[in-house]
C-alpha cells in the first residue's frame, strides 16, 4: 500500500500491472503507464528537479503529461489556466518565485522568459528513468477570484486526493469531465483517474458539445462531472441522446431544483450527485438525494470533514483543504481552529441547508439583502426556462433593484405570458424586494472559462 504522504503520481502509476487506462481529448491519447519509460519534456525534465515551475501548456493533454512528470520532481508548480494574460502570468511567477516555465512546445516561444524554458511536446519520446530523488511537490492553484491581484492556494498530493484515496478500492470507473483540469474541479477528476487507474476523457478547445457527447458515448464513459451551467447547456442542446452514463455529477455552482429535475428527465437511469468543493476548502461532501442543498445533519464531523455555519457562511475544516495562500500580504487561509471560510452563504429551512449565494454577491435593495442565486432558483423552476442571471440595476431610490436576464428553451412562445408566470411564481415564493422589477429574455448567457455563469463585479 502506497502512503500518500510520500508517494508521487508516478508511484501510483508504477504500482499497477495493467497499463490499460488512457487519457484522451478529441485529438490525442496518452497513457500514464508510458511515462515510466517516456517523457513529454525531452531534454529538460531532469533540469526541472527542485524548481518552482510555471505550468503554462496549451491543452489539457499536455497539462496532464506535465503534471504526471512534475509531481515529485519540481519543488512547486503553478497550474496556469490558458486565459491568464502575460501581465498576470508575470505576477504569478513573482509570487511563487518561479525559476522555470513549462510551455506548449508546438505553438511558439514561451509566454514568459524564466531561468529554464522547457517545451512540453506530444507524442512522448523515449527517455531513461528519472534520476532525481523524489520530493513532496507543492501544487499551486489560482483561486477562482478573477479580479484584482492573483491569489494562489497551495496544496500537495495528499490534500488534493484526500476525498478519494483509500475509499475507492479496486474499481476504476471510466471518467470524463467538462472542466478544465487546471482548475480544482477538473483537477479532482484528473487525479481520480491517474491515482485510481481509470480512463479519462477531456474536452478539446472549440469542440462542439454534440461532438464531445458523441465521443463520451463512444468511449463508454461511466462517470462525468461538470458545473450546473455545463449541464444546462447539455439540457438545452438536446444533443447526445445516446449518451447515458451511470453517474452524473455536478459541482462548482449551486445545483438548483430545476437542473436536478432536468437531469433526472434527461438521464432516467443515472445516479445524480451534486458535490461541494472549492479550491481553498477542498471537497466537502456529495448529495445524492437529488434535492438542492444538503441535510442539516451534515454539519458537524463526517468522513473526516468538519463543517459549521458562522455568520451565515459555511466553514470547513478538512484534510482536503489547501495548506495556505501564498503571496505577499496573503491573508490567512484558515482561522485559528483550522476552518476555511468558504464565503458561501447558507440558510437552514426545515432540516435542510440551502446555499443562497456568495457573501460578496449580495444585491442591496434599500438595505435589504438579496442573493441573486436564490431568485434564479425560483425563476429556473419555470418549465420553459433553461437558465437565468439575476443582477443589480442601479436605482436612485433604493440604491439597487433586482432584475433578471432569462433564457427560454427553443420554441418557447408567448413571452409575455411566460413573464407573468415567472413573476407570479416569484411573488408567491419571495419577499417583494427580491422579485425582479424587470425580466428580459435573452438568447444566451455568458459563462466563464471555468464553466460557471458569468457574474459581473
Amino acid at each position: 500500500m502506497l502512503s500518500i504522504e510520500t508517494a508521487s503520481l508516478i508511484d501510483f502509476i508504477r504500482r499497477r500491472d495493467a497499463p490499460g487506462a488512457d487519457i484522451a481529448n478529441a485529438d490525442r491519447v496518452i497513457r500514464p503507464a508510458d511515462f515510466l519509460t517516456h517523457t513529454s519534456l525531452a531534454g529538460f525534465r531532469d533540469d526541472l528537479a527542485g524548481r518552482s515551475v510555471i505550468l503554462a501548456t496549451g491543452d489539457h493533454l499536455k497539462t496532464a503529461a506535465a503534471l504526471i512528470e512534475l509531481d515529485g520532481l519540481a519543488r512547486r508548480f503553478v497550474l496556469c489556466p490558458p486565459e491568464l494574460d502575460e501581465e498576470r502570468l508575470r505576477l504569478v511567477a513573482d509570487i511563487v518565485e518561479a525559476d522555470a516555465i513549462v510551455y506548449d512546445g508546438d505553438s511558439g516561444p514561451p509566454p514568459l522568459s524564466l531561468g529554464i524554458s522547457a517545451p512540453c511536446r506530444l507524442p512522448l519520446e523515449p527517455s531513461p528513468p528519472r534520476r532525481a530523488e523524489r520530493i513532496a511537490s507543492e501544487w499551486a492553484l489560482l483561486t477562482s477570484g478573477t479580479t484584482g491581484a492573483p491569489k494562489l492556494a497551495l496544496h500537495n498530493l495528499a490534500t488534493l486526493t484526500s476525498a478519494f484515496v483509500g475509499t475507492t478500492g479496486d474499481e476504476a470507473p471510466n471518467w470524463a469531465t467538462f472542466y478544465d483540469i487546471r482548475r480544482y474541479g477538473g483537477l479532482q477528476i484528473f487525479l481520480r483517474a491517474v491515482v485510481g487507474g481509470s480512463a479519462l476523457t477531456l474536452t478539446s478547445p472549440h469542440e462542439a458539445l454534440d461532438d464531445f457527447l458523441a465521443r463520451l458515448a463512444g468511449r463508454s464513459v461511466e462517470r462525468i462531472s461538470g458545473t450546473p451551467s455545463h449541464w444546462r447547456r447539455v439540457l438545452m442542446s438536446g444533443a447526445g441522446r445516446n449518451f447515458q452514463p451511470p453517474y452524473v455529477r455536478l459541482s462548482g455552482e449551486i445545483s438548483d431544483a430545476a437542473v436536478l429535475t432536468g437531469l433526472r428527465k434527461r438521464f432516467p437511469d443515472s445516479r445524480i450527485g451534486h458535490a461541494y468543493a472549492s479550491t481553498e476548502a477542498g471537497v466537502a461532501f456529495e448529495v445524492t438525494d437529488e434535492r438542492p442543498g444538503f441535510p442539516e445533519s451534515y454539519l458537524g464531523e463526517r468522513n473526516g470533514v468538519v463543517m459549521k455555519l458562522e455568520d451565515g457562511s459555511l466553514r470547513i475544516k478538512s484534510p482536503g483543504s489547501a495548506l495556505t495562500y501564498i503571496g505577499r500580504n496573503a491573508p490567512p487561509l484558515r482561522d485559528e481552529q483550522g476552518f476555511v471560510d468558504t464565503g458561501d452563504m447558507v440558510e437552514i429551512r426545515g432540516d435542510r441547508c440551502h446555499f443562497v449565494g456568495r457573501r460578496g454577491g449580495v444585491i442591496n435593495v434599500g438595505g435589504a439583502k438579496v442573493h441573486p442565486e436564490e431568485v434564479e432558483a425560483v425563476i429556473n423552476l419555470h418549465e420553459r426556462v433553461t437558465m437565468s442571471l439575476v443582477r443589480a440595476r442601479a436605482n436612485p431610490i433604493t440604491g439597487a433593484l433586482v432584475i433578471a436576464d432569462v433564457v427560454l428553451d427553443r420554441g418557447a412562445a408567448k413571452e409575455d405570458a411566460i413573464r407573468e408566470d415567472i413573476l407570479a411564481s416569484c411573488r408567491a415564493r419571495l419577499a417583494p424586494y427580491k422579485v425582479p422589477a424587470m425580466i428580459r429574455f435573452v438568447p444566451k448567457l455568458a459563462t466563464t472559462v471555468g464553466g460557471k455563469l458569468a457574474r459581473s463585479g
Partner: protein
Amino acid sequence: MSVRATIISQVEQIAKEQKRAIAPLSDDLPLLESGLDSLCFAILVARLEDAVGVDPFAEAEGGGLPLTFGELVKFYENAVH
C-alpha cells in the same frame, strides 16, 4: 402616449403587481400618501427610464425633488423636453 399617461399607467401596473391600493392620482396628491412604498417608487423610476428614456432622479442634485403627483409629472416632463 404622453408622459402623464405613461406615468399613470406604470403606477397602476406597479400597484397591481405589488398588491397596493392607491389613492386617486390627482395633481395635489402627496406622493407619500399615494399608497406606493419606496420599492414601488424604485420600480417606477426604473420602468419610466426605459419607457421615456430619462431618469431625472439620477440627474437631480439635492432640492427640487417632487413631493406631489403633479410635481412628479412635471419633473419627468421637464426632463424629457
